[in-house]
């Protein structure tokens, strides 16, 4: 479970987050959506411990992001905004490197890599060096890297960006499976149809504040709109975005 409380963050004169609260529950896929520059990536970065908030706190399974960083990181799998790979290392070596840093033993690790390779359809490039990987291949490697330690909580920033239809569907299935295992998924996307399809609840963020939160049905009722696009515009538009 990811519990975000009164988070504030300012970069010089720009207020990126102006006191946001939300919860992403276990056994649910929570969609974090908002216009460009709304503060989504900043919020994610604070949750996955690379940024410190000016005030407020985040708890991952009751572990404080501010004081129990290592415990938090062990419980998190992150597909971040930056997808950099090492061009001279193979896909397998990338996943292995992160698995080892998570303390996985060799046998478990190799099994896990084989499993992820099957699940994500990576077998034809798993032993190729990353230089020249397509965007889709790169995203699969970074996704596998985020999942290698079977984290209880998953943060995914645009996980299907650049993937073809078949691969996107594979990722959607993967996300559902993780949810069905009772794990927690926080999902960022710009594709409303994908959000509608995958997410159980959504949190809409605009101008560094929470503009709305709940199931899609709840939000439709609240706004009187009949599509996700319309309610998104209605909620974020109120704040002039």
């Amino acid at each position, binding site marked *: 479970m990811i519990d975000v409380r009164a988070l504030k963050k300012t970069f010089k004169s720009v207020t990126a987050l102006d006191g946001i609260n939300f919860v992403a529950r276990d056994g649910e896929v929570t969609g974090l959506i908002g216009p460009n520059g709304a503060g989504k990536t900043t919020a994610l970065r604070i949750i*996955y*411990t*690379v*940024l*410190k908030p000016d005030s407020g706190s985040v708890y991952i399974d009751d572990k404080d992001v501010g004081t129990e960083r*290592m*415990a938090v*990181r*062990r419980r*998190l799998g*992150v597909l*971040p*905004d*930056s*997808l*950099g*790979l*090492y*061009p*001279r*290392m193979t896909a397998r*070596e990338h996943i292995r*490197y*992160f698995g*080892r*840093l*998570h*303390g996985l033993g060799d046998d478990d690790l190799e099994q896990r890599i084989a499993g992820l390779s099957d699940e994500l359809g990576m077998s034809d490039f798993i032993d190729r*060096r990353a230089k020249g990987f397509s965007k889709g291949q790169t995203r699969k490697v*970074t996704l596998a*890297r*985020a999942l290698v330690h079977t984290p209880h909580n998953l943060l995914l920033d645009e996980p299907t960006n650049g993937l073809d239809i078949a691969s996107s569907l594979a990722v959607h299935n993967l996300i559902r499976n993780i949810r069905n295992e009772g794990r927690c998924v926080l999902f960022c996307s710009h594709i409303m149809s994908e959000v509608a399809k995958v997410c159980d609840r959504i949190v809409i963020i605009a101008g560094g504040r929470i503009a709305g939160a709940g199931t899609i049905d709840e939000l439709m009722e609240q706004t009187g709109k009949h599509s996700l696009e319309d309610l998104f515009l209605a909620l974020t538009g109120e704040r002039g975005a």
Partner: protein
Amino acid sequence: MWQRILIVLGKEVTDNARDRRSLLTALIYPLMGPLLLGLMISATGKVTVGGDPSGMNLPVAGAEHGQVLVQWLEGRGINVVPPPPEIEKAVQRGDAHVVLVLPPGFDEDFAAGTTANISVVVDSSRLSAVVTINQVATLLGEFNSENWGQRLAERGVDYRSLQPVSLETVKVSTGTQISEIFLLMVPPLFIFNLFMGGAYLAMDTTSGERERGSLEPLLINPVERGVVVAGKFLATLLYTGVAVVVQLIALKIAFGFGGEHAASLSDAFGIMTVLGILLITFPLMAAAVGVQFVIATVTKSFKEAQTYLGLLPLVPAIPGMLLVFAPVHIHGWMMAVPTFSQTLLLGQLLRGETVSMVHVAVSMATTLALTAVLVTFAARLYEREALIFGE
């Protein structure tokens, strides 16, 4: 903790072993200096060979006019040979280093006790001819003073009364070859290489990693940033060490090019000396990597880091370069100056002088202290948020 440091270290070593540029700076660049020195040593080795001129072939034109001189030369073991055709052109081409030209009437003038003329044809711009020219000049000088002394004696004058000073050169270096000046060039070359060997790795693992966008995912792993810095630091140190060892081997080989005439040079790289060099310069390797890390972390881009790290090796090499031309007397305080102390100690080791253990200890301690400061600073820089996202 060590296990995770080793994981990062192993990844960086493997990753960079696949990189042409990392290998080039660690394995090939260190060979350049020794190669150049080797060529110079081999060239000057030939130049400085042989103080004793006996056995030399000396072309003499008009030998029949100056039998006195020819016989005297042959008495000194010189082979007087016929001159090449077109004397001046032959000397210009380098076919002959020196040709003596004796004019008609030489013997008559000599016998008459007057001054007999000789022309000496040389090309003094030709380095390889310098030794022969000196030898011939010395021989002719000896011939002159012998006969001059004899003529004065015949007139009842002691020639020594006309010679207020007698010159004799006493060499103080342990060896005898001019080419030992090359030993002075080793410390700056060595220090330059030491600051170059791991430079590419330092950039690739810090600013390179940030620019590729692989730093953020790496730092989300449950690993302290100090562990990441330590792994990367050790990988860079390893590549620096490889570059240093490669260069020492190359220097040992290069200093063998002088052959038996420069035996003292190849002796300079005995196994104990090499071990001593490694001991004395190990702290400097660590300090060099520390500086590289700080620079590669504070600079905003790979290109900027490349500019600074490319120039960096020149700075610590400067004292050594100056010492080639103006040696200094070693004082204790100099040992507290990293890079300068190693330059001096390296010079002492190579010249076969006794090295003070106190000096070594001070040099190592101060350099390690500097390293500790630099590494702590680099690790602090890694804690900044700006590290990942730039400024």
